[in-house]
């Protein structure tokens, strides 16, 4: 009962916030911007309460099943976005990110969530760290993807000398690049942590597991390599801007395969 009320509140909150961010993007009205951020913050608080209550009820971290995991993922994205907005004092990304949060949340709520208890095998703190770290990494990669796409759009507008509304509202190239670098670095560090803890846990729980037969692990290793290459190229070859934006896109496609695609091929590694 309370859970469904909370859920409704979250949906309405994200909806209002998404609409406000989209309205704010072309108009840049101070008041609308404040609504957008305020509603996002309120939704995020409700969302946190919901996730905590699910966690307390089921006795494990709230990422079992597709519903919980997507909900957890969008929650992380909302947190990362809000901190980026406050750090860079720029709301224009919100018009792209918050509607995606809303879509993901709607998609999640359409899936039935059984609230099944965690199988005993997975009741390990290593496992919790593994999943949490991986999720944080995915959320960060999502931002490196979005900022990369916006970078490419902005470069196109600048080169083609098309200075429309979208152009005038997007942040400066170097700011997008800076956001992209930060998101990628955070994502890569958490992915590394997630992989290390996953490995550690699996060695204990599953000594006979055949690593390379799990398509998910292959995808994740590929993802790790792509982002590692991007960071190396940045720091040693001085790559930036459009090239790293392409890499961010490639990396995120790989993340999607790891996150969703792999679910279709394997029933062992469902997150």
């Amino acid at each position, binding site marked *: 009962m309370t859970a469904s009320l909370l859920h409704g509140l979250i949906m309405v909150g994200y909806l209002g916030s998404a609409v406000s961010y989209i309205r704010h993007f072309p108009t840049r009205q*101070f008041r609308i911007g404040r609504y957008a951020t305020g509603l996002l913050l309120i939704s995020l608080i409700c969302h946190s309460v919901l996730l905590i209550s699910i966690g307390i009820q089921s006795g494990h971290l709230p990422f079992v099943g597709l519903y919980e995991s997507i909900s957890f993922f969008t929650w992380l994205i909302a947190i990362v976005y809000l901190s980026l907005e406050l750090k860079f004092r720029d709301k224009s990304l919100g018009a792209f990110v918050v509607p995606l949060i809303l879509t993901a949340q709607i998609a999640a709520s359409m899936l039935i969530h059984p609230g099944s208890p965690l199988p005993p095998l997975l009741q390990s703190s290593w496992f919790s760290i593994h999943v949490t770290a991986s999720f944080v990494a995915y959320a960060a990669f999502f931002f490196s993807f979005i900022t990369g796409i916006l970078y490419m759009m902005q470069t196109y507008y600048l080169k083609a*000398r098309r200075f429309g509304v979208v152009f005038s509202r997007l942040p400066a190239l170097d700011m997008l690049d800076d956001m992209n670098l930060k998101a990628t670095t955070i994502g890569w560090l958490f992915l590394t942590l997630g992989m290390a803890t996953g490995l550690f846990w699996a060695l204990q729980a599953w000594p006979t597991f055949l690593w390379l037969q799990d398509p998910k692990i292959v995808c994740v290793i590929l993802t790790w390599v792509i982002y590692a290459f991007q960071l190396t190229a940045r720091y040693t070859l001085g790559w930036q*801007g459009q090239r790293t934006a392409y890499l961010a896109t490639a990396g995120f496609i790989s993340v999607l395969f790891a996150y969703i695609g792999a679910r279709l091929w394997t029933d062992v590694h469902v997150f």
Partner: protein
Amino acid sequence: MHLNLIGLSHHTAPIDIRDQVALTESVQDRALSLLKASGSKLLEGVVLSTCNRSEVYATTEGDAPDALPVEHLFHEIHGLSRGVLTPYLYRKSDEAAIRHLFRVVSSLDSMVMGEQQILGQVKNAYLKSLDEQTTGVVLNRLFERALVVGKKVREQTEIGVGAVSVSSVAVELAKKIFKDLSQHTAMLIGAGETGELTARYLADHGIRSIVVANRTVERAVEVANRFNGAGVHIDEGLQMMKDTDIVISSTGADHHILRREDLAEIMRARRNKPIFLIDIAVPRDIDPHVRSVYNVFLYDIDDLQTVADENTDRRKKEAQEAEQIVEGEVMRFLGWYQGLAVTPTIKELRRQADEIRSEELQKTLARLEHLSDGDRQTVEQMSRLIINKLLHTPTVRLKDVSQPGEDIQHLSSIRHLFGLDENKNEGD
């Protein structure tokens, strides 16, 4: 009490006249002391002076707007004889003066519509007068409201969005590539007005350093001194380009001084960090084919002019919306302003009636000593009821007069009809 405005601006006066009346800080202080010394005719005053306008807002006593003392002050401030300025002056009062100030502060009356400075200039003019205590109830409220209107117009419309000159468009584009100009360097190749202006804008926006490159080093140094830059020979300048993020080129050369190969080499040397090139020379200094080089962003004067024109058109559209906001605010302010004129009249009317009533009551009761206390009270009660009923309609009508759109002139008719001003003079 009435609000009067006397002034001149780029709409009415040519530049040489405006130059003569532009007030420096010290003259502005003198203006306010003149205002204070001007005697009782001027109640309050604010002096507004920018490069393009010089205006005095003042309230005067009396039934009709009285521009004369204000005009007198205006001439005195500028130390010019009447004949010089008179043909260029505009005079406005009450509603028209309020509307004028609201339009000015919203930049609707500015030379470049949507410019930002005027809001600060009006604010400073007001604060100065506030400091000198030359303002009172009316001008305090008027200017505080005007500042709110100016902010509101800029928040709710896009009248100030988008650069409208070639050099400011260039700076705006630079900021789409480099968020923080204080981390970046610029170079001006050649000289020329637009080039220098662009360099100056970059300096104003906090660019880290500016190098000026020219065929003659002396000329380069001379120009560079104007924005604390370094002057170098043009060949040296081309060598330094690998460390330069923004290049403004405006030489008189008849061939391309930067070709595609040059840029390819420069970009290799700067490890492909973005470079922003502005070519404002005619004929062009930079080969347009450099656009195909990775992370090279080149704009010529036509590109910049197109953006400036589009932005000008958009500002004009936004101005219509701004005019509506201003009109709404004028009406709102008038509600208070006209009420201000009406309230004392209502009070005087009531006082006059009450004086007559109590005077006549005393006389009457003195002759009717046989009445009991209760009867006396009844008579007194009746006298109050009579004047209340008599004054009810005039009071309501007076309050109506204070509504925007109503004719404030009715007020003087009423005062005349009841002889209010005569009474006051007798009292004095």
